[in-house]
């Protein structure tokens, strides 16, 4: 339902009545074929909001090329006819489908639902009202959203980075961070928007790829790259892409001359006043809740934070103040894509908790047309070459690739698509396959690892067996890695397409294999994440076995006191522990470890062993890994050498028991990034800045006379946590920045410690006398993670955290079906993010548990009885014990030996195929003939 707005919400949890107003589109969606004739003829041009005002669109338009549904609409505010009936109407005359409906009207819909999920998103801060840094006055001061459009192939300059003032190529570009974030004076926003540091770096790197001679500087206060893999990206941007990072707030932006140059003046890190000139100044605008969302919040009567985000508890991070109404994404606080995706799933889990009694009452099976029998047909291969916007077309001559593909044997149809994966292209593909009677499909685009399943669905919808398909990876393994040489990339794209065509020619239809689902879950790890996932699954009606290595539930949370927003952790933790302990659906196995794992999605068989040595086998349909993290024992700053140098967790304990030394101390120095963001551990532990700031506030609250210092590298109190940082400074906590090359030095003095640190404001070393030193020690992967990874064959990143299937789009899945990930086993994170991820894992698990069977793919070993002589060499090498030997004596008394495959066990690895001396066994989809054809095609250059 597009163009719709919620106007009223009545009723309550389990029984909401939602009134939705559908605004008129003035175009009949059933008739519109999105040919664009209307927009071509429309005489009225207005600013294009999708292009952030950098370009124009017509009064009849589609918002963007991949809009869903791909149907035109008329902007009644701009349309000449709408304003003065009887005039213009050119579009109606031009439309070949007769789809224009000037008399279209508003429609009201009433919907009955059990729960509501609010995912209305954010909008970028608009700096035009404030005139900040000359935005609106100087054309070459633009927002980051506008830059995004300039860099896009579908943007106003088709990806050319030029100055808006005169079209001159941009050579020097500056990003100014924290526009509309962390700035109450000009912008009235005190929170941090969380995502801008990272997106600025990304835009800077991409811009550098567009214009190799581009010099980019990013002016920032704190570089908040706290997410998984972000610090490494930051370092690469600095060291490899050559982006300059300058820690300062720029004083002002002024025009220099008349041609559009901009002069920035600022105080550099040496304390000198500097002037620099730039072609383009990009304002990294923050995130805020749009006005219409505030109205929605009012209609649904949910509470908001002072920053206008949905108020949620850290222990129920997607539940609003109204029962049955959930919030996710940037509406529940500024956040990035992975976190938003997690919360999306988490909201689904929270809603399912309420709705589970009504499960399957209104569902329908997705049906596909019957499969066409292609046996005996001559090859009719269709090749679809994707532009991927400019991701491929910018570096590869796609037209040449398509022309070449048309010359390949068996190819009868070739076409190019702006985005082959977009929904409209999928629909067209189905039609083309049917009309042209294609029987093999090649898509030359991105990687089969992300997009093969989508195209399988598409060709299934066209009545073709889904396996009659091959992808040529001309993006990830071509255009993106040979960006500098279009000729070379084009030739390689042709080669890859030829290889794919050669392989698919030998592909036969294959049938998927159904496995029944065991309707219970195994959750490994009884910390916050593990328990939250277990409780949600239990409430959805699925039995859970919860395995905890130690003797108590709670994990790392046992050592914590308050969440960033001040919620009492022990109170909620014990509530969770008691829910889990009292649930009839949850079986807790404490002092127990996983010692062996077998099986596959729907049918895992895990052996657990208690401390008493007793083993038990658990059969389960899904697995959730929530094994948590550990903490680093520092080996610097005199830790474990001097009494008085403690880690943050130890300090909390000492403070809690009113320890003598804490009470007697008057000066505290917190040192951040102890073990984090170092070469051997180049990641941010994410929680320590907030933790230290909170401790500092508590110390000051207790006795304002205390001297409290925080020595930090970048203060990462992201999102609404920024309030704490502000409060700490207001209370007199002294925060001093240090860099990795000038780490603080801690020495013993007569009556305490002497800490030496370089002060970047005063430009001289500072000596701080301290009574206690608190180290923000890094969070490290859990100690049992490696063993578990081996047992379930799960990937880990180089630091030992588990690696999810896709950083952004599948943040709780493993590449292996049926296994999910939550909590600090994935990456260091605070309480509410652990719980959100746990709920997300639970939602993902429930999508399987709520089904009776799951389909396994058909990429399995198959025996060729004509070649197999039963030598049984393959049996020994099969790691999954999927092969067995069958001996039969025929009527003539001759003994026949042959191997057979258990398809439920076979993973399709093909060790058998690599071993067989007689070509008697091969993996479907990767047969000898297919690989040989692909190989020959690769070398036929």
């Amino acid at each position, binding site marked *: 339902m597009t163009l719709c707005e919620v106007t009223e919400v009545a009723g309550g949890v389990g029984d909401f009545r939602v009134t939705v107003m559908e605004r008129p589109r003035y175009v009949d969606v059933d008739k519109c074929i999105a040919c664009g004739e209307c927009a071509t003829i429309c005489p009225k041009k207005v600013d294009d909001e999708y292009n952030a005002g950098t370009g124009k669109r017509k009064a009849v338009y589609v918002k963007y090329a991949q809009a869903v549904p791909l149907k035109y609409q008329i902007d009644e505010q701009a349309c000449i006819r709408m304003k003065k009936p009887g005039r213009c109407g050119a579009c109606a005359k031009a439309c070949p489908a007769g789809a224009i409906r000037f008399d279209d009207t508003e429609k009201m819909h009433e919907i009955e639902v059990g729960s509501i999920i609010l995912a209305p998103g954010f909008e970028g801060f608009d700096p035009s009202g404030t005139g900040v840094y000359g935005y609106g006055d100087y054309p070459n001061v633009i927002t980051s959203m506008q830059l995004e459009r300039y860099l896009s192939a579908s943007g106003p300059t088709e990806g050319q980075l030029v100055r808006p003032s005169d079209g001159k190529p941009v050579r020097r570009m500056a990003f100014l961070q924290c526009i509309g974030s962390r700035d109450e004076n000009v912008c009235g926003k005190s929170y941090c928007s969380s995502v801008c540091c990272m997106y600025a770096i990304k835009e800077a790197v991409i811009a550098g790829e567009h214009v190799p001679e581009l010099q980019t500087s990013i002016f920032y206060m704190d570089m908040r790259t706290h997410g998984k893999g972000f610090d490494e990206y930051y370092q690469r941007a600095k060291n490899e892409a050559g982006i300059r990072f300058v820690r300062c707030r720029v004083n002002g932006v002024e025009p220099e001359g008349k041609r559009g140059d901009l002069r920035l003046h600022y105080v550099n890190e040496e304390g000198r006043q500097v002037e620099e000139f730039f072609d383009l100044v990009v304002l990294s605008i923050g995130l805020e809740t749009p006005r219409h969302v505030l109205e929605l919040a009012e209609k649904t009567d949910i509470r908001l934070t002072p920053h206008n985000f949905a108020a949620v508890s850290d222990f129920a991070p997607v539940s609003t103040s109204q029962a049955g109404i959930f919030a996710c994404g940037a509406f529940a606080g500024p956040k990035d894509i992975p976190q938003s995706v997690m919360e999306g799933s988490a909201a689904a889990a929270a809603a399912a908790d309420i709705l589970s009694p009504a499960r399957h009452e209104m569902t329908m099976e997705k049906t596909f047309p019957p499969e066409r029998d292609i046996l005996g047909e001559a090859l009719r291969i269709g090749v679809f070459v994707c532009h991927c916007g400019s991701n491929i077309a910018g570096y590869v001559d796609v037209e040449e690739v398509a022309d070449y593909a048309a010359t390949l044997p068996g190819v009868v149809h070739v076409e190019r698509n702006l985005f082959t994966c977009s929904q409209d292209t999928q629909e067209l593909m189905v039609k083309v396959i049917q009309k042209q009677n294609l029987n093999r499909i090649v898509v030359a685009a991105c*990687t089969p690892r992300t997009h093969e399943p989508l195209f399988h669905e598409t060709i299934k919808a066209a009545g073709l067996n889904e396996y009659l398909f091959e992808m040529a990876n001309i993006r*990830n393994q071509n255009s993106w*890695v040979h*960006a*500098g040489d279009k000729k070379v990339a084009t030739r390689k794209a042709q080669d890859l397409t030829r*290889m794919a065509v050669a392989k698919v020619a030998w592909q036969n239809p294959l049938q998927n294999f159904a496995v029944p689902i065991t309707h219970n879950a195994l959750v490994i790890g009884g910390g916050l994440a593990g328990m939250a996932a277990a409780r949600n699954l239990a409430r959805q009606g699925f039995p859970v076995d919860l395995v905890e290595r130690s003797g108590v539930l709670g994990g790392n949370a046992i050592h914590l006191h308050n969440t960033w927003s001040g919620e009492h952790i022990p109170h909620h933790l014990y509530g969770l522990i008691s829910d889990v302990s009292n649930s009839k659906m949850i079986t807790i196995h404490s002092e127990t470890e996983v010692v062996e794992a077998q099986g596959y999605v729907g049918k895992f068989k895990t052996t657990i062993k208690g401390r008493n040595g007793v083993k038990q086998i658990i059969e389960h349909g899904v697995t959730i890994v929530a094994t948590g993290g550990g903490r680093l024992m520092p080996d610097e700053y005199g830790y474990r050498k001097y009494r008085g140098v403690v880690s943050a967790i130890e300090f909390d304990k000492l403070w809690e028991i009113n320890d003598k030394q804490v009470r007697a101390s008057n000066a505290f120095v917190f040192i951040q990034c102890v073990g984090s963001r170092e070469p051997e551990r180049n990641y941010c532990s994410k929680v320590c800045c907030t933790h230290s700031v909170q401790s500092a506030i508590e110390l000051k609250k207790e006795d304002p006379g205390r001297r409290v210092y925080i020595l930090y590298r970048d203060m990462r109190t992201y999102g609404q946590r920024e309030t704490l940082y502000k409060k700490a400074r207001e209370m007199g906590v002294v925060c001093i920045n240090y860099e990795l090359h000038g780490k603080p030095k801690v020495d013993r003095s007569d009556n305490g410690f002497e800490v030496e640190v370089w002060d970047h404001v005063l430009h001289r070393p500072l000596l701080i006398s301290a009574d206690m030193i608190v180290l923000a020690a890094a969070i490290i992967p859990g100690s049992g993670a490696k063993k578990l990874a081996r047992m379930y064959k799960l990937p880990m990143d180089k630091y030992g955290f588990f690696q999810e299937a896709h950083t952004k789009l599948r943040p709780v899945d493993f590449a292996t079906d049926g296994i999910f990930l939550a909590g600090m086993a994935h990456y260091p994170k605070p309480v509410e993010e652990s719980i959100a991820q746990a709920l997300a894992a639970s939602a993902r698990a429930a999508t399987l548990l709520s089904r009776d069977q799951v389909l396994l793919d058909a990429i399995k070993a198959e025996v060729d009885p004509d070649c197999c002589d039963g030598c049984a060499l393959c049996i020994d090498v099969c790691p999954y014990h999927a092969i067995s030997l069958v001996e039969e004596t025929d009527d003539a008394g001759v003994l026949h030996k042959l191997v057979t495959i258990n398809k439920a066990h076979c993973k399709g690895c093909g060790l058998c195929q690599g071993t067989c001396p007689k070509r008697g066994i091969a993996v479907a989809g*990767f047969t000898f003939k297919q*690989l040989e054809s692909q190989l020959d095609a690769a*070398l*036929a250059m």
Partner: protein
Amino acid sequence: MRFEPKIIAFCCNWCAYAAADLAGTSRMQYPSNVRIIRVMCTGMVHPEMILRSFAKGADGTMVLG
């Protein structure tokens, strides 16, 4: 003319092929001489395939997994 070797790489779908994808996502630049053949596990690559690769003119063959 400069010698441009032809290199075949058999890449495991789960690691090396994923790594090659990741190299793309990270925009790492490398010479274009390699042609990747995706396999579900390097164990699938029969010795015959490697010999065939050389026989058909490859200057190098990598099995990555």
